[in-house]
């Protein structure tokens, strides 16, 4: 009798579910065991700060695959289980309840968790963060009682939550440690455009500022910052980044807590892979990095699954994402080299542009757009190919950048 192989996917995440789907699509006939901590069917998180938070879509609309799909595809989804230990030698995953699963191959897609804010009073009532449907429910319920709200952090989550709260007519003040909106990812120019858009929608922003103390009784009442007087707060949403859930990996982690994987997403142990937020990837074009975006979770899940079946693919996706705030969409692909140059098509002033990032050698490494998505989508293939485009043509909105493609 031939024993069926078992592939375990730790994390019923977007990366994990995508990998399960690809394993079946590619004809894998062994067991696929998918371990998830949450009780809900696996769902997409981007809507939690937007349509779902605003009550425009039900939670069911966020699910990655419906319950029947898991049955039809014979994917053994275990919900509400905490995978506590992975033994890379015995090749087992052990759950908190002591149950364990033996595997031939494993994919770690445990994602990340919110970075905790260390400030006195952070445990007061109505100080929230956002990762799960339940978190979004709590924020929506608080917003229904009205503001004022304080958002701590103006990265993508903080900016999207601030936008949604304004759309729900809640008074919002943002406290952000850096000099402008979404500064770390977008940089100064595009970040400033987003800050102006938020200002026009009535968001009060305090940059270069941090929280000293949350003040209140049972629930938060005021936020004391290092620069400002107390800001009144009926509730607070903290969004100051994430920490990868790498602790299950028994061997060494990267400095930022990610699980190191090679260009094919394999760990140092053959047959054990990582994908999504938790994977610290040796990227063929960008070097080692960890990416916390939706599309990357899908694409890494796809690559990992194919490589579990022996495809040997180098994961060279240049990372693309979007963010919807009010009626504008931010899109970005690739990276912004610190020593590079930026070529802008459109204008920051008009809040409609695509800014291409070239490195010192003139190689296209990334593109960032606000209300100009088409050229970011078109730049994806060009960043992957590492083309050296003519800056004059890049700046000309009438030039179709697909003509830079090789072959």
């Amino acid at each position, binding site marked *: 009798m031939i024993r069926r192989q078992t592939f375990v996917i730790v994390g019923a995440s977007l990366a994990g579910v995508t990998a399960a789907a690809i394993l079946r699509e590619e004809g894998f006939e062994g067991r696929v065991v998918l371990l998830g901590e949450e009780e809900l069917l696996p769902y997409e998180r981007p809507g939690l700060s937007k349509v779902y938070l605003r009550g425009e879509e039900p939670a069911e609309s966020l699910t990655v695959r419906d319950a029947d799909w898991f049955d039809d595809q014979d994917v053994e989804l275990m919900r509400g289980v905490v995978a506590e230990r992975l033994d890379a030698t015995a090749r087992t995953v052990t759950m908190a309840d002591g149950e364990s699963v033996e595997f031939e191959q494993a994919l770690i897609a445990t994602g990340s968790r919110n970075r905790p804010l260390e400030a006195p009073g952070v445990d007061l009532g109505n100080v929230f963060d956002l990762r799960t449907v339940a978190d979004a429910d709590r924020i929506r319920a608080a917003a229904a009682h009205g503001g004022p709200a304080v958002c701590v952090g103006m990265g993508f989550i903080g900016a999207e939550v601030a936008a949604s709260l304004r759309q729900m007519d809640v008074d919002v003040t943002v406290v952000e440690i850096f000099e402008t909106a979404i500064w770390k990812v977008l940089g100064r120019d595009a970040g400033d455009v987003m800050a102006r858009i938020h200002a026009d929608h009535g968001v009060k922003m305090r940059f270069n500022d941090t929280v000293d103390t949350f003040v209140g009784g049972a629930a938060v009442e005021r936020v004391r910052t290092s620069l400002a007087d107390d800001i009144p707060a009926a509730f607070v949403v903290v969004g100051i980044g994430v920490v990868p859930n790498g602790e299950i990996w028994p061997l060494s982690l990267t400095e930022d807590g990610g699980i190191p994987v090679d260009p094919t997403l394999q760990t140092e142990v053959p047959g054990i892979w990582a994908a999504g937020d938790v994977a610290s990837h040796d990227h063929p074009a960008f070097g080692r990095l960890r990416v916390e975006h*939706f*599309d990357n979770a899908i694409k890494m899940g796809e690559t990992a699954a194919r490589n579990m079946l022996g495809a040997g693919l180098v994961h060279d996706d240049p990372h693309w994402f*979007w963010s919807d705030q009010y009626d504008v*969409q931010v899109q970005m692909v690739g990276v912004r080299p610190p020593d590079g140059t930026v070529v802008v098509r459109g204008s920051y002033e008009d809040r409609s542009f695509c800014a291409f990032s070239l490195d010192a050698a003139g190689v296209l490494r990334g593109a960032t757009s606000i209300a100009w998505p*088409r050229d970011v*989508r078109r730049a994806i293939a060009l960043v992957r190919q590492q083309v050296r485009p003519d800056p004059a043509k890049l700046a000309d909105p009438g030039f179709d950048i697909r003509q830079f493609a090789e072959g």
Partner: protein
Amino acid sequence: MAFQQVGPSGDLGEGEVQAYDVGGEEIAVARVGGTLYAFSDICTHRRCNLANGGEIDGTSIECECHGSVFSMETGAVLHAPATEPIATYPVRESQGQIEVDA
């Protein structure tokens, strides 16, 4: 069901895609390699309009919002995040008009 005129052939160039209102249905028509394809304009992921910024590559179209890719021939999902196919419709040209059977 029967073919209905949606617009003049001359308005849809090679490699282009346009959305039409066909009896209340939003239907996109694309012309690639001289062949017409008609399909639902509404992405099944988050209901973005495919014709609005959708990128055509061969006989597939990629949604501008979140990157789902569909076959314009069969409606099948070629790339997530969408998981449900889009509807496709018979389309033809007659006497300088594009006609869709929706």
